[in-house]
């Protein structure tokens, strides 16, 4: 009996080191909000990461300097709260030996994680952390995938200006860090574009009754609305704008309409636009990785739903890291960081270039946002179409909404 056992041990002793030589693994660590209020936004991002990992591994791994690296993801639940983020990132680095890091979802958690990643000198690709502030604190190893928050609503303002230069704009946003950043940026942009903002109003992030807010919009005489926040409040606002027949000619809300589930609002979703980091129908010509269409198909096959921009951002984070490692020909941090700093390329997710100054290292400066609108297709169902900028558009912006809602 024990002879057999010894035989097995011997065999393992021969095989295992051999396997280790043939294949190395790199570990990417991160926390994600499996529970708590950020779960809805964080979950698709995780799917993006996982889709990328599966594809890389199916293709044999990342090639760098003659070695093939399989990718392993290691992640923990941060409960949508910063309390344990530093503890968990330290664990990821020290116990789980993560070679690279992804960010948690949201700017607040990412900044907290960045204190740890910077301390250990680990590269952290951030996705779902749009606020510019994070990248202006003197970091060296952060790389942002998202267009910064203060530019989110710019495309919507451009669209408004082209349709109605005299529009009366209501800027109504959730009083949280990201949305406030976006709204502040929009207010500035509107001013420089000569647009007229007639109402600036913020609401508590957990607001459910928008009655008083909508009454204020109506009494301000605004004909277009930009703002919003995250999925929960944004979808609630959209629904009540419809229920209360607000008669707006144009609505653009952050985040919420980009989540495919937004279509479940039915008629209330129709015509609502969303500034989007990415849309399934964009027509970018990638320098590496799949085309947007291929990505969409792969995602849909695996998860049976369309990818939104959170998913695309997650996927692209992996893709960009992979590309940088391949360019560097090494998995050493300085080499990969150098490759990332030098990156100026287009992927299925769009153009990527990171700022490299001392004051704003890692800030995303290459990526452009698009404006998508929920439109009723010939099949009678709602589809999200890219309507702005015109160069990326695959449908015309419906304006004003008033007639569309009849």
């Amino acid at each position, binding site marked *: 009996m024990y002879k057999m056992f010894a035989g097995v041990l011997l065999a393992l002793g021969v095989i295992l080191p051999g396997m280790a030589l043939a294949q190395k693994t790199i570990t990417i660590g991160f926390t994600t909000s499996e*529970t*708590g*209020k*950020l*779960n*809805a936004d964080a*979950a698709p991002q995780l799917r993006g990461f996982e889709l990328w990992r599966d594809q890389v591994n199916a293709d044999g791994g990342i090639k760098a300097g003659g070695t093939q690296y399989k990718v392993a993801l290691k992640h923990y639940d941060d409960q*949508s709260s910063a309390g344990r983020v530093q503890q968990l990132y330290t664990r990821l680095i020290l116990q789980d030996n993560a070679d690279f890091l992804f960010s948690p979802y949201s700017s607040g958690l990412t900044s907290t994680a960045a204190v740890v990643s910077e301390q250990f000198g680990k590269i952290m690709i951030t996705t779902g952390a749009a606020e510019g502030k994070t990248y202006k604190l003197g970091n060296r190893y952060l790389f942002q995938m998202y267009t910064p928050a203060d530019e989110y609503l710019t495309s919507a303002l451009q669209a408004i200006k082209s349709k109605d230069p005299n529009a009366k704009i209501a800027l109504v946003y959730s*009083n949280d860090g990201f949305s406030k950043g976006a709204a502040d940026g929009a207010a500035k942009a509107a001013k420089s574009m000569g647009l007229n903002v007639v109402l600036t*109003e*913020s*609401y*508590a992030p*957990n*607001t*459910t*009754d928008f*009655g*008083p*807010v909508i*009454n*204020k919009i*109506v*009494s301000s005489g605004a004909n277009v609305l930009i703002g919003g926040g995250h*999925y*929960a409040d944004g*979808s*609630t606002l959209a*629904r*009540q704008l419809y*229920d*209360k*027949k*607000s*008669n707006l000619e144009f609505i653009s809300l952050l985040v919420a309409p980009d989540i495919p*589930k937004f279509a*479940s*609002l*039915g008629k209330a979703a129709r015509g609502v636009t969303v500034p989007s980091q990415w849309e399934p129908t964009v027509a970018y010509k990638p320098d590496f990785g799949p085309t947007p269409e291929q990505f969409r198909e792969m995602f849909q096959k695996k998860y049976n739903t369309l990818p939104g921009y959170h998913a695309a951002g997650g996927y692209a984070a992996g893709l960009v890291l992979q590309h940088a490692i391949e360019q560097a020909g090494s998995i050493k941090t300085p080499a990969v960081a150098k490759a990332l700093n030098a990156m100026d390329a287009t992927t299925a997710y769009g153009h990527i270039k990171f700022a490299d100054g001392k004051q704003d290292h890692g800030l995303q400066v290459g990526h452009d946002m698009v404006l998508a609108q929920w439109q009723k297709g010939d099949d009678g169902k709602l589809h999200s179409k890219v309507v702005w900028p015109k160069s990326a558009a695959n449908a015309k912006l419906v304006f004003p909404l008033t007639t569309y809602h009849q």
Partner: protein
Amino acid sequence: MIFDLTASVINGVLVGAIYGLAAIGLTLIFGVMNVINLMHGATIALGMFSLYLLTTAVGLNPYLAIVPVLLGGFVFGVLVYWIAVHRVIGSSDLMTLLATFAVNMIIIGVGTAVWTTSPYNVDVSVPQLAISMHGYTIPGTQIVAAVLAVILATLLYGLLYHTRLGKAIRAVANNRAAAELMGINTRWVLAISFGIGIAVAAGAGVLIATLFPFTILSGANYELKSFVVVVLGGLGDPAGAMLGGIVLGLIEGVTAPFVNVSWTPVIEFTLFVIILVLFPAGLLAFKWGRK
């Protein structure tokens, strides 16, 4: 401005009626057994998801769904009472707070596992009843929900004041030892009261879910509002809760035209603390000089 204010006042009253109903569940339990029910919010959320399940899986009319939810909520409440609350009734406030908080954690935990924390939406609309004036519209759903809230509150009032069970409940609330001497099985009355409190909270959840999208965490917001409402109306006073709810709705509506709405919670909770300190029996009860 005038129409703006009128519209906000009407909106406030309509939403306030639902706040009131939600708070009745909380205040009833407090009144009868001196327990601050920290699973109140989770119960409201369960009501919301029950509506979602009953309309999507069973295909029930959303407003009819309130009946099974009330019944289910009652049974659930009685069960929770016997399992988690009864043992600590009569011991310190801390124990009952923690017992209900523990159940809250369990519900939220299971709910998160089952439904995640992403929002759900029940598509209800009653356009025939919508009222429009000068560009301001009150959706039909809001009117129906407020009317149902008032009806439910009235039914509950009738139950408490005009039935044998209701009188037993009030007797226990008033003086548990004496009620026992009258031949009232007070243990069961406590369990039943807890069941009714939970059922009403779940029912309020249903009404809220016909108006707004919701997540498993949404109840927490209404729990906090319910605290404010019961303090306005007088802790333990179901009739006061309805009034308190409407007052809260009005505060939200009336302040909105004048200050940025993100300040509303500041006003609400500051008022809450001040009223609690100055009029612990509630603003409305103070009028009658009751302590």
